[in-house]
């Protein structure tokens, strides 16, 4: 196999209050390779969100090693981490986090404003990303006019717009009914088929069915790491 995209070794995370120290991650180790579709599962409090924040350069870890594409993340400063989020990572959130009073196009353009692309290049990238989630017909609608499923597709387009190495999806179906949720999962599976590496945090077993590999967490420890032999296929956009 090729070089891992993510290499995590003995990763720990401690939250310190004035009095109590809580341990969110107690030493986890795994590798994620390009082209994978990994689900991170576990009950609440298992440390899966914390892990995703660390992997997404939003949060610092306490000890251990995290190599992203061979880069030691421990040594990166605030600006370098922001650049990693900008160029390497796309986020999909449970609550969509779209700007309500902005159009679909403006929402998808948002991450590109922090790049060095020219405006025509940005618009081209944004249109491609919107096309890839089949939302071109809604390009100039305000995000407040969209349904939940459409909002999440726009959010996925926004995650893809800077052509990241990896997409992190945090409970992407959590705010959707099961039918719309399925469509979003099918979309993610399709994107994985077309080469995108995807890491999805979920507590729903049905959602995890769409991924190729499942990491199960409990109490800040990795319980199991299994390949999903009966992966449900995408086909949403076909």
């Amino acid at each position: 196999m090729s070089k891992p995209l993510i290499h995590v070794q003995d990763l720990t995370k401690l939250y310190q209050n004035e009095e109590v120290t809580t341990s969110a991650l107690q030493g986890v180790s795994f590798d994620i390779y390009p082209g994978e579709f990994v689900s991170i599962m576990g009950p609440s409090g298992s440390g899966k969100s914390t892990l995703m924040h660390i992997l997404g350069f939003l949060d610092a870890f306490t000890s251990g090693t995290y190599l992203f594409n061979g880069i030691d993340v421990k040594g990166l400063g605030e600006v370098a981490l922001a650049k990693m989020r900008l160029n390497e990572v796309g986020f999909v959130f449970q609550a969509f986090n779209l700007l309500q009073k902005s159009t679909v196009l403006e929402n998808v353009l948002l991450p590109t404003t922090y790049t060095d692309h020219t405006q025509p290049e940005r618009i081209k990238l944004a249109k491609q990303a919107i096309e890839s989630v089949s939302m071109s017909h809604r390009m100039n609608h305000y995000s407040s006019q969209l349904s939940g499923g459409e909002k999440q597709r726009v959010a996925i387009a926004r995650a893809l717009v800077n052509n990241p190495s990896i997409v992190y999806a945090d409970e992407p179906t959590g705010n959707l009914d099961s039918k719309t949720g399925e469509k979003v999962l099918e979309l993610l599976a399709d994107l994985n088929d077309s080469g995108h590496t995807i890491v999805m945090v979920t507590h729903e077993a049905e959602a995890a069915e769409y991924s190729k590999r499942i990491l199960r967490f409990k109490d800040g420890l990795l319980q199991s790491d299994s390949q999903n032999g009966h992966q449900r296929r995408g086909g949403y956009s076909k």
Partner: protein
Amino acid sequence: MKISDIVLTALQSLNRTRSRSLLTILGIVIGIGAVIVMLSIGQGAQGLILNQVADLGSDLVFVEPSSGEAEGGPPSPFIEQTVNLDDEVAMERSGLFSSVSPSLYTTVPVIYQEFNTFTQVVGTDEEQTNIFPAEVALGRNLEAEDISGNARVVVLGKEIADDFFGASDPIGQRIKIKDLSFRVIGVFGEQGTRFFQNLDKQVFIPVTTMQNDILGVDYVNYLSAIVVSDIESTKEDLKILLRDSHDLDNPQGLAEKDDFLVSSQTDATKTVGTIGNVLTILLSSIAAISLLVGGIGIMNIMLVSVTERTREIGLRKAVGATNQEVLRQFLIEAILLTMLGGLIGVIGGVLISLGMGWIIQNFFLDSWTVVIPPSAILMSFLVATAIGLIFGYYPAKSAAKLNPIEALRYE
């Protein structure tokens, strides 16, 4: 992130809260607008007075009574009247002046048949028109014999003549000034205003007649003179001359020991300039307060905006914005707000200044010139920008400091 992107992003954000943004900048708009209007009117007034002072000619000196206060103080109505016609004679004899003329004012009823008006009467002499040039439109000016003979003759200002006599010939007609009968010997052409006095509504009689028959006094309000040679040295010579004729013991030439004040056009210009500067400082202080209040309003609304947009800030950070970029975005939003406020304020201020200038020109003082000081416009923009920078920094800093994970969870 390029500056143009930050500006564009900031503009989009402001556009989303358009009505609130406009209300927020109202304080700045009013502050800047008020500065422009006040400075425009202040400078217009100053310019008007300075023009009139300049029109007097730079070779004029004035002698007025003074209670011995420092030079340049305002004339007081309760001052001891120490300047008289003996001083005039002394000045004429000195050879320092080509013309000397007294002025003594009073305001009394002036009557012709059924016309009755309360107007300013000036006691003066034939040399007045050498000093303040005026064209005699009809008849003749006062003459030396009128003064020495205590004659009851009068030269009318144009407006009074028109009011009283209309199209008919006023020369030789008799009018009553404070119940005494005067013969009209002349009418001046239109003269307009000088120092906010309408010269066309004044009437001019011999100073001696004014002293003896109307007021019963032996002083004059002031003497005006045209100097022959250098004005500054003549002023000093004139002071010595007046100390002699007033029997003053003041060898050091201390202004507080003199009972008179010698001034010239230059002094008047300086005084007007000083008044103008004081006025500017006063207006600037008021403006500074209103801009401070406006700035606090901006800070307040930017803090609200940061709180409201916590999730947006979290999102921006999650997609790759650095703290610096978030800081800049909010700072530029604040600066754009205040600059827009400044722009609207300047436009509004200029329009109001032009409008008020037009009204003043057409209804009050036709010699008024509308001045819109470019420095005030430039300053307004700089101040507005500075306010955005100062009052926008704290909210922007607090936006930049937000933790993206917590910001994204914010409800």
